[in-house]
Every structure is written in structure tokens, then in C-alpha cells.
């Protein structure tokens, strides 16, 4: 059953900018859904429309079966975590977390108990008398989280909550938010431009570009079966290697013929002949003396446990995941594990598997 439903939601700003071109999305009760996309793709606008901080130009938003499209944020019962925390600077941590309860007219003793409880939960109990400016970014975000949680809203909406944190804090907070959400089972819509963050935190990922949804799927689904060339390149770091060419039939079997090389790579799947783009993840590319694709190493990106070797070939730059060093300037032959390749339509860029 869908708990939060967006039906052809659109947003056009007064200056004519179309930020969101029609979004349909069903979020199940207790689900953690991440809106992922590059900046300017409309993900934050979508989130703010769900909160009621922006009005919808068209479409409908339903929350728990109620049409909330025209309701004010205060009438929607949502918790919102802002990218820049948006804590009240003149109030202490305790007063910040108590603010929503105070506005609801909850009795003082109960406010005290609930604030203590939620602050204990997010681990900011020792900081109750401090002021926001005295806290680290991670602690501020915990306070913002506590403030969003204390009223027990029906939905958490989070706008790049980890955007301003250091890398190590980011990982810790990411795990923390996920653990909190699972424990409380509150439906969460979460915006980020960081695909690694999205992969590690989401039940489902919604990839957005240019105000449109390109793909909705589980993290593995989005990674393994990107719906189109954009998703293939955007998800994963680095993204999928893409080779332009065409599908042809040789001796009754489908092969992929790259544009600039006289090669015929046998395909594991059936496919109609015609222009196509072959996508393959760096982990399925390896150095092989007899490999079909030769090139020159331009960058050996060392990441500790492994490295990404960037190789300039006739078919463009191919990234290979490797455990061996490959000094820049050296030549290398690449083997492709085609059982894991994906085919995209040469004209539309859509995945052939998704057609």
C-alpha cells in the first residue's frame, strides 16, 4: 500500500523555469526512498513540495490517503531536516528540540521527558545546554534530526542532510540515520546528489534528471541495470564504461561491433541488430594480453584496496578496476567480461533490457 503518493507533480517557477516536469512516485509505509540526481535536477524542489514549502504547479500529493496538495507545511505532519540544519541560533539544544512540542502546547513535564528521550536516542544528551554555534557539524545535524523526530511525524523529509559534513562524519551519520529509520519504521524521503550515499542508505533509489524521473529501483537494480545511458554514467564511481557501436549477427549469433575497431564481441543476450551502446562496469574489465581492446594508460587512480586504471583506447576512455599497478604511459590490452555487459539503444539511449 502506498503511504506517500505523488501523481504527475509539476513545478514551474514564476520566472518560467520548469524545475519538475511531472513526477509520479509511490512510497510504501516505512520505506526509505532516496531522490538522487545532479544539482538542478528537481530533487530538492520535489522534496520541498512534499513538505509544502513549495506549492505544486500541477499534480497531486497524497499522504496516508489524504490529499495534502494544498495544505500548509504545518498541516501535513512532516519532519524536515534541512541541508544547513536550520537550527534556531538563539536557542539551546534543549530548547531547539523542545520547540515543536512547545508550539503544540504539550505540557512542560512531558516536553522534558520526550526531549530527554529523543536526545538520548540520537546521542546528544551531554550537549543539551549548548548553543548551535558551539557544536560540530555532525552534532548540529543530530540536533536537527532530534527536532524532526521529537514530534513523531508521519514522514521524515531530509534535504542533503550530510552535504556539509566531513567524509568520516558523513559515513557515521549515514549509518546512524539508516539505523534510526529502521528502528522507528518511519517513511523517509531523502535527497542527495551523492550516489554512494544513496546506494548505502536507500531501500529504493529514484534517479532524477532535468525535472524527470529516469529510473526507480533498488540500489543493486539501479547499479546493475541502469535504465539509460545517463543513469549508467551517473551511478557508480566511476560510472559504467560506454562503447558506441552496433549489434550485428555473425553466423546466426548476436555480436557487438564497436564503431572504430574491427572487432566482433559475442553477446551473451539476444538483441536486434542496429546501433547500440555497450555498457560495462570497471570491475568486469581486466588486463589480458590477448584482450581485444588495446590502449594507453593515462591515469592510475590508487584507492588503497584497489585501483582504477584509466585507459585511452580507440573506443574512448575505458576504466578498469585492478589490483596491479599500471604506470601511466604504458600500453595494456583489455579483456571484457561480456556476461555482465548491458546494451543501450543507439538512438534513445534506453537500456534494451528495460524496453
Amino acid at each position, binding site marked *: 500500500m502506498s503511504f506517500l503518493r505523488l501523481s504527475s507533480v509539476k513545478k514551474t517557477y514564476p520566472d518560467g523555469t520548469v524545475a519538475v516536469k511531472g513526477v509520479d512516485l509511490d512510497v510504501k509505509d516505512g520505506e526509505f526512498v532516496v531522490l538522487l540526481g545532479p544539482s538542478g535536477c528537481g530533487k530538492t524542489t520535489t522534496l520541498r513540495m512534499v*513538505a*509544502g*514549502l513549495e506549492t505544486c504547479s500541477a499534480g497531486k500529493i497524497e499522504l496516508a490517503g489524504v490529499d495534502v496538495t494544498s495544505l*500548509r*507545511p*504545518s498541516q501535513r505532519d*512532516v*519532519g*524536515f531536516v*534541512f541541508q*544547513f540544519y*536550520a*537550527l*534556531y*541560533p*538563539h536557542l539551546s539544544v534543549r530548547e531547539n528540540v523542545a*520547540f*515543536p512540542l*512547545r*508550539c*503544540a502546547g504539550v505540557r512542560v513535564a512531558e516536553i522534558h521527558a520526550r526531549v530527554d528521550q529523543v536526545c538520548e536516542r540520537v546521542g546528544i544528551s551531554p550537549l543539551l545546554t549548548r*548553543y*548551535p*554555534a*558551539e557544536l560540530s*557539524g555532525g552534532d548540529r545535524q543530530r540536533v536537527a534530526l532530534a*527536532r*524532526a523526530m521529537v*514530534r513523531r511525524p508521519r514522514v521524515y523529509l531530509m534535504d542533503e542532510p550530510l552535504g*556539509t559534513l566531513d567524509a568520516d562524519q558523513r559515513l557515521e551519520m549515514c549509518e546512524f540515520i539508516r539505523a534510526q529509520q529502521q528502528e522507528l519504521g518511519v517513511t523517509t524521503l531523502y535527497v542527495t546528489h551523492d550516489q554512494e550515499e544513496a546506494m548505502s542508505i536507500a531501500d529504493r533509489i529514484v534517479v532524477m534528471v532535468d525535472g524527470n524521473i529516469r529510473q526507480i529501483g533498488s540500489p543493486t537494480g539501479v547499479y546493475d541495470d541502469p535504465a539509460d545511458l545517463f543513469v549508467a554514467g551517473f551511478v557508480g564511481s566511476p560510472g559504467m564504461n560506454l562503447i558506441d557501436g552496433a549489434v550485428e549477427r555473425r553466423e546466426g549469433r548476436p555480436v557487438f561491433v564497436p564503431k572504430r575497431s574491427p572487432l566482433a564481441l559475442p553477446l551473451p543476450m539476444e538483441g536486434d541488430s542496429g546501433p547500440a551502446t555497450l555498457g560495462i562496469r570497471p570491475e568486469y574489465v581486466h588486463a589480458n594480453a590477448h584482450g581485444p581492446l588495446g590502449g594507453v594508460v593515462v591515469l592510475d587512480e590508487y584507492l588503497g584496496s584497489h585501483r582504477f586504471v584509466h585507459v585511452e583506447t580507440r573506443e574512448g576512455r575505458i576504466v578498469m578496476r585492478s589490483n596491479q599497478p599500471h604506470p601511466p604511459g604504458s600500453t595494456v590490452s583489455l579483456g571484457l567480461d561480456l556476461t555482465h555487459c548491458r546494451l543501450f539503444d543507439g538512438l534513445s539511449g534506453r537500456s534494451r533490457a528495460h524496453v
Partner: protein
Amino acid sequence: MKHDAAAIRIAFVAPTLVFLIVIDLFPLLYNVFLSFTNAQLSSAAYDFVGTRNYSAVLGELASPRFQDALRTTGAFVVCAVAIELLLGFVLALALRDSFRGRSAVLSLLLIPMMLSPAVMGLFWNLILSAHNGVLNQALEVLGISGPHWLTDPHWKLPAVILVDVWMWTPFMMLIALAGLNAIPGYIYEAAEIDRASTWAVFRRITLPMTAPLLGLAVLLRCTDALKQFDLVMALTGPNDASTQTVSALLYQVTFAGQKVGLGGAYACVVLVVVIALASVFTRYLDWLAGKQGRSGQVAT
């Protein structure tokens, strides 16, 4: 090279320094010097009289006319600054959101602040004139018979306050507006999400977040209003019992009484008071800076 740098430094500072010495330091020291003499405006000759002027001033502090001047000044400061604060804040709240013609309204409202107080005093003298003044004529249209602003002892101080309010409300409004604009929009969004009522937003967010800056404006206005002289001078004259502020009394003693030495001693006493106020002022500023450091949002 090193000498050149020092010379350039001195060359840059020198004009300001000379200016300050001529305009500020010399008159101050000369005034202190005069306060120990019996100098008169009308004659160049004078004798040292020791601390006689000061004992006269201290005696004067207990005198009815000084007490009256003090009371008048106090009433003026409290009424004028309170009304200016209230009006200025209300205007700022009305003008914070953009609307068509906002900048025009803002510019119009700021005009009084830009004009010379002495000139404005003279203009208001005409406006407030009991019989052919614009204000009373306007009131007459509304069916109200206006008071004799500048001749009725009950209405003289209110008249001075009225003109001061007219002149300085824009200043309060400007500072309040700066305070309001400094509150980031997402704070209000957070409050909306937190289901704060309009009143709660005003009382718990807008007011406390602008209060430090309003406090600063009040302090600035108080120090300025405490030495109120020009409006009194232009509207009712320096020797009017119902509007004689401390500064006006000082002027009366020094110039009308021609007792430069005694006036000098008065001025020295006032100076001490002003320095005390200024230290309160700087302390407040320090406290404010510390508080901002504590509660200021870090924009990253």
C-alpha cells in the same frame, strides 16, 4: 627602506591626527583649563579661581533648575526613544517583504534622517504654529482643534518629542530592518515545519533574533537623545522651563550667562557622564559580539 615605511605611515595618519587634535583634543583640554578660571565671553581677561566653578556646579546639581532639566531630559529620552523603537519596528515589519513601490516608500521614509536637525526645527516651528501651522489646519479638517503646540507649557515637550520621533523613527526602522533581514529564510521554514503559530514565530524567533540589534539602536538613540539641544533650541528656545534639557541649560549658563568658566566646569561634568555611558555602550557591544559568536550560524 624601513625609514620610508615609517614616514609613509606617519604621512597617512597625520591629517587625521591633526584634524582630531584641532577639532577634538584642543577644545577639550582648553575647556578643562577654562573650567578652573572665571573667564567670560565678553572679556579676554580672566583669573584662576581653583575649583570654585566645580563647587558651584556641584551646588547647582541640587538646584531646582538643574533637577528640572534632568527630569525634562529623562522624560524626553524615555518617551522619544520608546515611541521611535515601537514605530520603527512596526514599520520594519511592514516593509520587510518586498512589494511594488517598496524602495520608493523606503526612500521617502528615510528623508527625515538625512536633514539637518536645526533646519528641521525651524520648519517644524512653522508646521506647529498654532493658528496658521499646517498641522493644526490639517487637524481642523478632521474636526479636531489642535493644541497650541509651542506656547502651551503642557504641549511644548510633546511637540519636541513629536519632531524627534519624526526625525529618528527612520533610523530605528533601518536598524530593525537590517535585523529582520539577517534572519535567514530557512529559520522561518523550520518554524513552519515545527508548526509554530504566527504569534509564536514572532515571539520566539523574530523578536529574540532582532533584540540584540534593537538594543544597540536604543543605546545609540539614548546617548544621542540625552544631549538633545538643537530641536529645543529651534522650537522653544534654550531657556524655556518646560523643555529645558541639560544641554540647553548648559548653553544658557555658558552663552546667555556668558560664564565660560562655569559652563566649562558643567561641560566637564557632562563629559564624565557621557564617558560612563559610552563605556556601558562598548560593554554592550562586546557582549553582543560574544553572543553573536556563540549563537551565530556558521555558513558553510
